[in-house]
């Protein structure tokens, strides 16, 4: 399939993966993935369950070591300097990283202090306000709904101010209002020059913020296309083709 993305490795590139392979024993999960994400660009990672989306995100996030290949985050090679890469990264996986017996504010305070970010009360309240949870700051997370926990996890990222955001199915568990807020927030993040990669099964919301769609099938990058010319329907057709080819 046509890949219409320039892999020139320009200075604008905040995330660059080359020849990423990941095997668990004999099972090959990723096979030679190349991916570049520029400043202000959003990439939606698509693929069937087990296609390797989460593994790819976790490799870029420095949580999983690739079998071979390399990743650069804002010019920092992840394999050589994971700490340096982590300073540029924000990651939201399936887990929320929230302690259920702490309040929302306490959770934010904990992660902000541990990460060396601003942990002053105005900063924490500001982050809670950004996700519309300011009224719930003193409540224990145990009492939160799944959507509220997702928003609180996003507030943690607001405080961290990363340059590259990695989100694993970020719209899952969010209601209409939460999804709208997230879409707007991600647009602002991109507008400020951040790079975004998100795995998703939601074609609708995700394509509001994704400039490109990268489709994984059978451990390979089956397609990497600009979303605008094709539209959501075009990408969906391409996705169906890629997944069928991979199956």
């Amino acid at each position, binding site marked *: 399939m046509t890949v219409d993305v320039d892999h020139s490795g320009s200075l604008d590139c905040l995330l660059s993966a080359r020849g990423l392979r990941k095997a668990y024993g004999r099972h090959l999960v990723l096979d030679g993935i190349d991916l570049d994400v520029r400043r202000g660009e959003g990439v939606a990672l698509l693929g069937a369950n087990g296609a390797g989306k989460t593994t790819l995100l976790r490799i870029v996030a420095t949580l999983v070591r690739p079998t071979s290949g390399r990743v650069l985050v804002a010019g920092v090679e992840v394999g050589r300097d994971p700490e340096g890469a982590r300073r540029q990264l924000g*990651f939201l996986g399936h887990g929320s*990283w929230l*302690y259920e*017996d702490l309040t929302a504010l306490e959770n934010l305070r904990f992660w902000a202090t*541990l990460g060396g970010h601003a942990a002053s009360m105005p900063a924490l309240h500001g982050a809670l306000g950004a996700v519309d949870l300011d009224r719930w700051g003193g409540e224990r997370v145990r009492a939160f709904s799944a959507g509220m926990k997702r928003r609180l996890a996003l507030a943690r990222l607001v405080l961290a101010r990363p340059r590259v955001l990695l989100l694993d199915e970020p719209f899952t568990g969010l209601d209409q209002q939460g999804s709208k807020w997230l879409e707007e927030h991600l647009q602002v993040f991109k507008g400020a020059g951040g790079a975004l990669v998100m795995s998703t099964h939601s074609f609708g919301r995700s394509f509001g913020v994704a400039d490109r769609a990268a489709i994984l099938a059978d451990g390979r990058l089956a397609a990497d296309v600009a979303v605008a010319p094709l539209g959501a329907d075009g990408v969906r057709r391409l996705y169906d083709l890629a997944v069928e080819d991979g199956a």
Partner: protein
Amino acid sequence: MTYARRAWIVLWKDAVTERRAKATLNALLFFSLLLLFVFQFTLGADRERLVAALPGLLWLGFVLTGLVGLGRSFLVERENDCWDGLVLTPGDKSAIYLGKVAGNVVLMLLVEVILLALFALFFNVDVGRALPALALVLPLGTIGFAAVGTLFAAMTAHVRAREILFPVLLLPVQIPILLGAVKATEAALAGEALGSVGPWLQLLVAADVVYVVAGLLTFDALLEG
């Protein structure tokens, strides 16, 4: 300063979580009571035998409750993938270890003080005059125990057979701590000066230093897996 703040926030988080959930503390106190009943039945009313066995029994109680408490110390990090957060947070990971050890020391000392009071009550033993010496011996024994216990708890947190592996790994390494702590406690309860067990105290301090330093140096690699 940042390092100390990071260690402190981990200690604070563990303390607040435990104070609210009381999951570990309640389990440890109940377990302590059960142990006392078992010791009471085993030793009966023979006071001479009890006094001779008391230092060993005390530390057996501390070790068994410590095993239960330490084994749980990283379970909270597995919930909601908080472990990933600890890995990905930039900065020296040994600060996280230090905070965790401090939290475990505080929890264990709290249980030890309660257990000591219960021992005095159950067995009608006067520990009052031994308190100043015990105020030195208990923290020394607990720091070493928690230092290596926290490390092994992190090491086995993702292992399927961790309930078995954790004590199997931990107990042999605790031998120097137990030897020093039991001998020093024996002297304290007998009303002897701690100077009479100087070499045992030196062993205790040396084991503490070795275990804490080993933990600080290796925790980063352990957390990264």
